[in-house]
């Protein structure tokens, strides 16, 4: 049974990954939707780890994605590496390089410095992956902070706290026009500013396939990491905490540590997705953190199945494609429905119906049916085995294992 399940899991991974790899050739005109679908799949599945596995119903997930995106954007805008000191900007030596900050007090310092810098001195932006990595670090730090602050908050209070955090962050970014660009947004360079060559094909910075493959790589990496976590003691403990914090603590689980870890890890994943998204779309604005966006991610996870990482990811991908498909207007007789507006109504109705009739989502029960196939029959078969065969009437039933906590050799 376990061997079959293992083979089934491997098969699912191989088929799923293969499908996503050939997707660009199946829908070459829909690559933008595919990239965005993967972005939402990362957010929905990591939120499922936080809320579905860990029971931490947070509304701050998009705020962490925004932190990742804005960290990447701000580094892209303000930070440069040079091979010589500028003597005009704020700068720090980094080996044979200089880390230069063009802060708001001296926005043109680098332009002025070019005149005095030695011939051949290089001025370069940090590579996109480094911006994204810094975003992950910042996201993780905020996740740690929020995780520590909400330790004693549960359910409604946790939700309200995280809504407040997300709104404060969005409003602050909106207000700080000099640094973040305010509501007008922040421009970023593309993931591959000079294009890239893949298997002999040259792709420009505007081509969709390279960013799709990078986002797919991040998605697969994140899914592998989350599945590994969910199957480890970490996964077992966060589920125990979700079920009953007090009981988990009384059984030796360090509730504080695992809750903070869960917030930190999921915040880092959301920040990575946000950073990648920022370099893909190349303009980010505070509205990427609005509650509506958070609601979309939650709805994707709920419709797919909050207690399943795969269910949430599949839910996100299907819903993103469906929402794009629903943009086309529908004409019924003399009436024309503007589906660009009405599609969210359809989406909301689907969410309500799912919550009412399929509390575990639409995908998760299917996965459960496959993974738990035979469990009920096995239980019944074991129960029907005559216990008397191994357990005589008198007091010779199996004794308590002498040292249950000593691991098997």
């Amino acid at each position, binding site marked *: 049974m376990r061997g079959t399940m293992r083979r089934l899991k491997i098969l699912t991974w191989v088929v799923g990954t293969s499908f996503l790899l050939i997707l660009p050739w199946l829908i070459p005109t829909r690559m933008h939707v595919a990239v965005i679908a993967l972005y939402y799949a990362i957010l929905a599945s990591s939120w499922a780890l936080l809320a579905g596995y860990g029971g931490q119903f947070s509304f701050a997930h998009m705020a962490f994605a925004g932190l990742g995106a804005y960290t990447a954007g701000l580094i892209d805008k303000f930070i440069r590496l040079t091979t010589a000191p500028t003597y005009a900007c704020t700068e720090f030596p980094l080996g044979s390089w200089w880390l230069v900050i063009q802060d708001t007090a001296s926005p043109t310092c680098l332009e002025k410095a070019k005149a005095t810098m030695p011939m051949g001195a290089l001025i370069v932006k940090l590579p996109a992956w480094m911006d994204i990595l810094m975003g992950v670090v910042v996201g993780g730090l905020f996740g740690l902070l929020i995780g520590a602050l909400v330790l004693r908050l549960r359910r409604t209070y946790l939700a309200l706290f995280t809504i407040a955090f997300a709104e404060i962050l969005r409003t602050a970014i909106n207000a700080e026009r000099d640094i973040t660009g305010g509501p007008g947004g922040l421009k970023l360079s593309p993931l591959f500013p000079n294009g890239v060559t893949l298997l002999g094909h040259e792709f420009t910075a505007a081509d969709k396939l390279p960013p799709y493959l990078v986002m797919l790589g991040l998605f697969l990496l994140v899914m592998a990491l989350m599945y590994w976590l969910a199957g480890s*003691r970490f996964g077992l403990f966060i589920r125990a905490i979700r079920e009953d914090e007090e009981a*988990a*603590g009384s059984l*030796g689980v360090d*509730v504080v540590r695992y809750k903070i870890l869960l917030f930190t890890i999921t915040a880092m994943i959301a920040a990575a997705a946000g950073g990648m998204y920022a370099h893909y779309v190349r303009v980010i604005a505070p509205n990427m953190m609005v509650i509506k966006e958070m609601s979309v991610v939650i709805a994707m996870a709920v419709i797919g199945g909050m207690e399943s990482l795969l269910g949430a990811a599949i839910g996100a991908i299907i819903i993103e494609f469906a929402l794009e498909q629903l943009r086309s207007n529908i004409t019924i007789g003399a009436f024309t429905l503007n589906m660009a507006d009405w599609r969210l109504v359809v989406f909301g109705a689907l969410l309500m119906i799912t919550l009412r009739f399929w509390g575990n989502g639409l995908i998760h029960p299917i996965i459960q049916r496959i993974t738990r196939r035979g469990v009920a029959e096995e239980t019944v078969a074991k129960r029907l085995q005559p*216990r008397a065969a191994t357990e005589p009437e008198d007091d010779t*039933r199996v004794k*308590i294992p002498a040292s249950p906590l000593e691991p098997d050799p």
Partner: protein
Amino acid sequence: MIQLEVNDVSKQFGGLLAVNHVSFQVQGPELIGLIGPNGAGKTTLTNLLSGALKPSSGTIYMNGQRIDVLPPYKIAKVGLGRTFQVTRAFRRMTVLENLLVPALAMHPTARQAQFVKKAREVAEFLTIDHLLNEYARALSGGQQKLLELGRLLMLDPDFIILDEPFAGVHPRLMEIIYEYIIETNKQGKAFLIISHDMETIFTLSQRLLVMAFGKLIADGPPEEVKRDPAVIEAYLGSDSDKPWQPERKTPPAAGDRIAA
């Protein structure tokens, strides 16, 4: 040897003194019953011992270590385990996963697979081995109580607090719980058992603690406690001059069998 020292512990909730300057000691693998009318402070006292609540005053030591300042998970690691008045199985986790949680929490570097065999043995002892892959929510109330006991076996504490282990349990399961207590006690574990099933608690306990209005009003062998005027007053009122007899609710089949 197990040593528990409860020194002048009180717990106040607003104007209510739920536990009022309680002191007692446990030396070795004693089987102790804790009884008292509803609202006497029994569950609050167990919450103080397990770290779910912090005392307003007083100290608690276990095996020489002060535990009233520790978080619950550290108290579990010192060697104190408990069950709850209302069963608190991890309902959306399988029976096997429920059993693995304490074992893995106690052994941070051990691998999960190392404890699966132990979990099977524990489940077999508690007659829930056929349910190992079922979610805990599929278990009956009595089976969930057995699962809680199983988790304690995997935790392997020196001092075990059972809060109403016999409440609402089928006589056959009650027998298994009874046997669990006797067998585990023989292995050197101390027990503090809260129960309203007076017949069973009097049969089972070597020592009885009686609480009323937050105070510890009696501490001694069951036969002595039964005649204690303070206990008679707490249970029957001040007008009674009869010695108190616990009401016989369920036949203690297992107790009789084991005693024989």
